[in-house]
């Protein structure tokens, strides 16, 4: 006899739950089981104030094994990664790490990356960095480059082909 979520009729997925808990163990010692829903995480959550993210409900979904609901929800992409939830949890649970794992699972299952994530990933693949070197505008509306400011050349991967191959290999395997 398992719990069924009455709003979505979702069945708990024990395997997916175990997979997320395994990932969490790699990063920290405490699993979601210790959460007693005090909602201290939600009271401090930066994304709660603007985007209605409720970290304690994220933990509750994981505890019940309702992973599909978690992974398919757009709300997992609203986390600002301020880490107040992890910092203040009296049970040392880390909702932020559950959100990272859920987002990873969403990507793994083939869901489209939101916003600029694809562009950022492509830039890392191509240049090693999140973005190309920018020309900036000064307060007096002049434009300046890195070279003009007398800064040394950028440090980037020496063998781009090998660097790219490693990243592609990681993208192919299970995290």
């Amino acid at each position, binding site marked *: 006899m398992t719990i069924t979520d009455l709003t979505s009729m979702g069945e708990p997925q024990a395997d997916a739950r175990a997979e997320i808990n395994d990932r969490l163990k790699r990063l920290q010692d405490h699993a979601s089981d210790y959460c007693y829903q005090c909602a201290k995480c939600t009271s401090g959550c930066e*994304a709660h104030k603007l985007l209605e993210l409720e970290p304690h409900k994220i933990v509750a979904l994981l505890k019940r094994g309702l992973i599909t609901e978690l992974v398919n929800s757009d709300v997992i992409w609203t986390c600002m990664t*301020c880490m107040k939830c992890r910092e203040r949890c009296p049970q040392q649970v880390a909702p932020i790490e559950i959100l990272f794992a859920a987002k990873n699972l969403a990507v793994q299952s083939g869901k489209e990356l939101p916003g*600029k994530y694809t562009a950022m990933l492509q830039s890392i693949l191509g240049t090693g*960095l999140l973005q190309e070197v920018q020309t900036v505008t000064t307060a007096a509306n002049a434009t300046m480059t890195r070279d003009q400011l007398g800064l040394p050349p950028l440090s980037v991967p*020496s063998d781009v082909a090998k660097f790219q191959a*490693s*990243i592609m290999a*990681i993208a192919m395997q299970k995290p």
Partner: protein
Amino acid sequence: MSSQRYALFPGCLMPTEQYAYELSLRASLPLLGIDLVDLPGLSCCGEPMKSVNQTLTLYLSARNLALAEQQGLPFYVPCPQCHLSLHETNLILQKNPAMLERINEMLKAEGLHYTGTTRLVHTIDLLYDTIGLDIIKKHVTNPLTGMKLVVHYGCHAIRPKELGRPDDSENPQKVEAILKTLGAEPITHYPQKLDCCGAPLLPNKPETALAKTGQKLQAIQELGASGVVDVCPWCHKMLDSRQTKAGETVAAKLDLPIVYLTQLLGVALGVDKEKLGFTLNLSPVHKLGLRSQP
């Protein structure tokens, strides 16, 4: 004073657009005996990819740590996001030999190997703990008198405490102590001090990211502070470069000077202001007398 060598880990944002941070740390830290070494071959630390693939984050952090280990040098990491990513990777690889082996298998392609020994410092602990306030005080030639400054620490420099961060998670005071040593009058507490700047939402929710920035800056402006000091290129991008747009989200005219700690350090140590990148601050830093009015 003997000099200490550090490999500089520039990250992505500082060396591609936040030039004022890089200019000012390169100009001021050598005066305090810090010898910065530029390493070839570095890449992104991987932190912004943590939402996409955490193994990728571990790999990218580890390859950079391996490059510093190869030279036998500690890393000076001015970006708190990079600092957290490299630090967390160190902790995971030290605790989990199977993961270390797996990452080293991936590093082989680039001829790299990591054993886990690269030490890290950020701007805050480099100045406060490594160099120390006594040494800084001896070098101050141009005290920052009359500046009533608040500090925006950002998130990654102080949380999560259990991993060990450059300053305390709930009552950080090291930057205020550094500013006092430089002759300024920091406002040590304010209600929004521990709040986020919004930058991590830039990739997928840019409007909300700006609203977050606007709310925090509006509150600081109402405090009557003469300026805000930060230690993170992401926070600075939001508070300084995007200040006007952030103001629009809260229907406020924001007019707050935003400066990097290393820029003020340079001023107090007597570095020529031209070398500290003040023309690149888009906020009104002329109100602090740091450049002529544009």
